[in-house]
């Protein structure tokens, strides 16, 4: 095993991991802020990926450009989902568990809608740049992961800046830290929650297209993506945006390296085993929560 190959798999691991992080950041946000585990998160991402696929094959519009349409759509879908369904269970004692079941129902619906509309065949974006590579010294970088990486950096940093710099973002953080007190300060908790949820679902759309650039996808793919979501979010600490980004990179590196050294069928086993160990040893995540 030469060092070039190790470095190569390290880099591609980082790029893969950044896309997991982009998919995971909204999931982390709803779990941390609203105590809602959105099991349908990856399914929303899948929906955006399928939409991008259709737009690309019918009109030749680039998958990344299709986000201009699908992200606002998913944002409103997320807001609506919160306003009409989730808001009814937020008063329940076991919000987390109820939300898991409710969104599981949503995930089933989305998955089967995708089956009805697009069929069960695996899909792949074959754009003009899919097979092109950038060569830097001895290293080869494929275009799609690089684009995914850029998307992820842009997406995560804009969510981070939104939370830190804007008024609404500050209100989201306030609502998370002190739900009652923030209401006393004139924050409309219901509206803030709807916006957060919409934002999270919209970011899932970007993450889904990113995943579609890296892997082939079919209506059932969101189940596997969901495991990666849990992994990234739990390692990064629930509700921690930068932690999620870091966790994505770490997991990407681990998967990248294990793909280089292990037979393929052991890679997923390693991933799940890793998640179990982390859950037992450090369930609060590796990074201090700082929001």
């Amino acid at each position: 095993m030469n060092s070039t190959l190790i470095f190569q798999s390290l880099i591609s691991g980082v790029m893969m991991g950044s896309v997991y992080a982009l998919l995971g950041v909204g999931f982390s946000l709803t779990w941390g802020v609203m105590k809602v585990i959105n099991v349908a998160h990856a399914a929303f991402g899948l929906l955006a990926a399928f939409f991008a696929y259709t737009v690309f094959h019918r009109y030749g519009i680039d998958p990344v450009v299709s986000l201009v349409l699908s992200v606002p759509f998913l944002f409103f879908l997320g807001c609506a989902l919160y306003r009409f369904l989730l808001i009814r269970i937020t008063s329940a004692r076991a919000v987390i568990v109820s939300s898991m079941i409710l969104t599981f129902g949503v995930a089933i619906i989305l998955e089967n809608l995708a089956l009805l509309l697009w069929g069960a065949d695996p899909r792949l974006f074959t754009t003009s740049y899919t097979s092109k590579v950038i060569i830097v010294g001895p290293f080869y970088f494929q275009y799609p992961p690089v684009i995914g990486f850029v998307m992820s950096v842009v997406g995560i940093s804009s969510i981070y800046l939104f939370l830190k710099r804007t008024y609404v973002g500050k209100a989201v953080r306030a609502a998370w830290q002190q739900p009652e007190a923030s209401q006393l300060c004139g924050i409309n908790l219901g509206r803030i929650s709807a916006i957060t949820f919409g934002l999270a679902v919209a970011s899932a759309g970007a993450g889904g297209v990113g995943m579609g650039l890296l892997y082939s996808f079919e209506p059932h793919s969101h189940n596997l993506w969901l495991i990666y979501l849990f992994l990234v979010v739990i390692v990064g600490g629930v509700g921690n945006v930068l932690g999620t980004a870091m966790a994505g990179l770490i997991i990407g590196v681990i998967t990248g390296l294990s793909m280089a050294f292990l037979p393929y069928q052991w890679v997923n086993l390693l991933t799940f085993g890793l998640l179990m160990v982390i859950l037992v040893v450090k369930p609060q995540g590796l990074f201090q929560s700082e929001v």
Partner: protein
Amino acid sequence: MAIALIGLVAFPLFGPPVYFISFVFWVFLYVCLSSSWNLIGGYAGYLSFGHVAFFGIGAYATAMIGKIFGLSITMTLLATIPAGVISSFIAIIVGYPCLRLRGPYFAVITLCFSFVSQLTVKNLEFLGGADGLWLKSMDVPVLVNRTIFYELMLFLTVLTVWVSYLVGRSRFGAGLRAIKEDEEVAQTMAINAPRLKIMAFALSAFFPGIAGGIYACYLSYIHPDVVFDVNMSILQVLMALFGGASSWVGPVVGAVSLTLVNEGLSTFVKAELARIIYGLLFIIVIVFMPNGILEFFSRKRRKIER
């Protein structure tokens, strides 16, 4: 109650089509699975999302015992009991670290556990790997064969429901409910929470282990994707919650009604459409009847009586 039981035992003797016997077999299987899940998930409030692992472990343990000792099919059916013990044993080992986690973390770790066990079986050559395992099959007509499995599953299901009923009434069950309400307070009231949780987890893994063994003999071929199917884990959770997870009746009602609905829907409409309606059902149940259909209807009746 007794009449209904005798009716169920005698059902195959009236010579219904094989389809009905197989269908009722499935209903029993799900009643058994969701009732045993309810011991840890419903009574103690620890939502295990990977309970199918114990089903799969039971299936593989039975198949391996039968294969290693070269047992006949009748003896292999008896081997389901040690298979149940094996899955209980694994539940104790896994439960020891995992049961310290709560809420969603416990749900995620058990889900992971079921994936890990599925992938491990898939990657190990001596367990058949991704090709699956063949078991001996019975040399009897289909109807007799199905009837035998029907009666076996009926027996196991009645046993499971009975145990679930007894646990619900016992001090053990009361302890589990206290843990569900508030684990810290329960521990200050001299309830040994870790021990009770491990016991409940082991017990709730025992019956799926046996059921997995019976299922393996029923199919006479097992594959990791079939006996470790994650949908099965999720279904047993939903069935229990659908009926109402706080009593022994809930999972029974939930499993029977959801299996009927699923079968009915997939007979009349397209499979994808049926699944969409199924998904809508979960949403409706969780939004309007968060404590299960049983409590929803009993509360309604109380309102009318008043």
